[in-house]
């Protein structure tokens, strides 16, 4: 039993990281008022680009993660052009981008022969004697570098959003672009950069799935994690630390699935695989019930394009 729990906890953080980073990226976009349904697609782009960098450029794993980020940010330029500059419907553009990324990644993955090729990937980095602590050692101090980095990344972004002038302007753009505009904030520039930065984090989340955990590229390998991240942002009420807590919860559930079978417990495999989606749905319902009648937390201008010379 102890072994089961130890192995479960040891895997939890690695499963939590993609959710955490993707949700953080989404929070950056959405706090600036851009509804980003693109997460599933940009995670795929990051995942493929990471593996591609390893296979084609012989990049070390950390550099591969950076390539994943850059690739997602590059594709996000197209999305930002559509919704920030051309001010298209953000739902339509977001969905179209997901479909685009799904098609693009499976095309490129197949065309370059990167599909189903195992790679080295990130290695574990035990933190000296801490890693030998019972239970917690494996769970917290024997992880790969990105797991350790996630905390400082969250701290930095949370500080940026809530304490810095840049964050104040960014949130103003998401709450009231008119007020931000009147205050001399360049709404278009802020939204554009927020989309790029957020998408880079989403790409990092995707690259971590392929380069960090799975160490392989398979078509559509994110299997809905992007959508779960979107639900996670709603659950977190657009706050970074709540998103991190939610991500760890989801990591717990997802890491449980393979371990139940390995432990010899009789549970139908596909019913177990359903679990993350059912739990996500359950969390969304629970949030909705718990917060009925209260004012929403979402940025007031979320999903609304800003046109200054609109006559009202």
């Amino acid at each position, binding site marked *: 039993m102890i072994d089961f729990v130890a192995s479960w906890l040891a895997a939890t953080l690695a499963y939590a990281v993609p959710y955490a980073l993707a949700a953080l990226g989404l929070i950056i976009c959405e706090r600036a008022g851009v509804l980003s349904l693109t997460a599933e697609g940009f995670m795929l782009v990051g995942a493929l680009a990471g593996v591609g960098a390893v296979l084609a450029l012989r990049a070390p794993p950390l550099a591969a993660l950076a390539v994943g980020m850059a690739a997602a940010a590059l594709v996000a330029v*197209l999305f930002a052009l559509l919704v920030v500059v051309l001010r298209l419907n953000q*739902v339509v553009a977001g969905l*179209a*981008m997901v479909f685009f990324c*799904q*098609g693009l990644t499976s095309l490129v993955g197949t065309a370059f022969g990167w599909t189903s090729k195992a790679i080295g990937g990130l290695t574990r980095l035990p933190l000296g004697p801490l890693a030998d602590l019972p239970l917690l050692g494996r769970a917290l101090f024997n992880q790969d570098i990105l797991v350790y980095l996630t905390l400082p990344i969250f701290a930095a972004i949370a500080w940026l959003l809530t304490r810095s002038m840049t964050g104040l302007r960014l949130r103003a753009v998401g709450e009231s672009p008119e007020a931000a505009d009147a205050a001399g904030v360049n709404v278009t520039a802020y939204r554009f950069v927020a989309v790029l930065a957020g998408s880079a984090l989403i790409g990092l989340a995707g690259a971590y799935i392929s380069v960090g955990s799975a160490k392989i590229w398979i078509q559509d390998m994110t299997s*809905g994690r992007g959508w779960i991240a979107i639900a996670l942002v709603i659950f977190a009420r657009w706050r970074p630390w709540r998103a991190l807590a939610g991500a760890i919860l989801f990591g717990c559930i997802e890491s449980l699935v393979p371990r139940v079978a390995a432990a010899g417990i009789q549970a139908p*495999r596909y019913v177990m695989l359903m679990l993350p989606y059912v739990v996500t*749905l359950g969390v969304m319902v629970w949030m909705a019930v718990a917060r009925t009648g209260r004012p929403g937390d979402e940025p007031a201008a979320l999903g609304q394009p800003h046109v200054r*010379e609109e006559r009202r």
Partner: protein
Amino acid sequence: MARLVLDIRREASAPFHAALTAASVFAGLAISAAILIAAGVPPAALADEFVVATLFDAQSLHAVLFQAAPLIMVGAGAAIAFRARFWNLGLEGQMIWGAIAATAVSLFEIGPPMLRLPLMFLAAIVAGMAWIALPLLLKQRLAVNEIVSTLLLNYVALNVLLHLLYGAWADPKDSFPHSPLYRGFERLPELPGGISSALVLALAAVAALAWLTLASRFGFHLRFVQAGPAVARSLGVPVLGVTVAATLLSGSLAASAGFVIVAAQEGRLTQSFFTGYGVSGVLIAFLARNNPAAAAIVALLVAILFAAGQNLQVFYQIPFAMVQLIQAIVVIAAAAADFFLRHRVRWVKGIG
């Protein structure tokens, strides 16, 4: 100081609208063609693969029409939900449940052989409605975002399907993950003249939907719901009823698409019969501007694309994912064109 100014365009003329759509679709196809050429398809062969080999060859044309039936159904299904402001991205989940329900009727031999096929169809419709009812209820009662909930439910439906196909419903004759073949009378027949009854079913559904949305009082009210539920409610439009009906209809159409694929094309429940239809359904509805009749035409074009995609795969080793990429590029181009529909860009002289 001269400057570029962006205005909100309040009304665009119909010819401008049509020309813009045509130009954007053409631009999307041109970009796609460039990608194909870059991938090694000789430019001269493009026309052959997309037009000659799909339309001017009797067998290929037959395949295209066969392929078109489920696409028409998912496209029309997406369109009717979008008209009711319900983002149904659960088309694949509803297809899966439609196919599962139809297969259940076959597996458990419910009803006499004469009625078996209609019963399978009915079961599919009911299952599709039931599967969309949950996100609909969650949206109406608790304001749970239906984009996310319908997408998550797709993964649930997929795992239910795999659970059945790798378990109780696996064909005992072999070890592949598919159900036993349907009996002859459980399959949608080919009508005299080589026309698939699936296509007839799809066209009948589109005709009914066109009447419902364009000619009936329901459609009149639906237009108000689409324009804005709050105003519609103030004006006495039965918003809830219209929304629920349109959404259930959407689920049943998607489920019907699942039914016709398993009952006409595959002849059994398989593990990937639905792949790509969800995306296509959404894109068809978008390009058809949610008009059911236009959706049928766009679906036919997408069917040609599917057929051409299969040819490209065979002859030029272009992955089939290219089909989805082309669709996405065309839709992005068409969406980008909306910018000019909604805005007017002009130079002004400014202070001088």
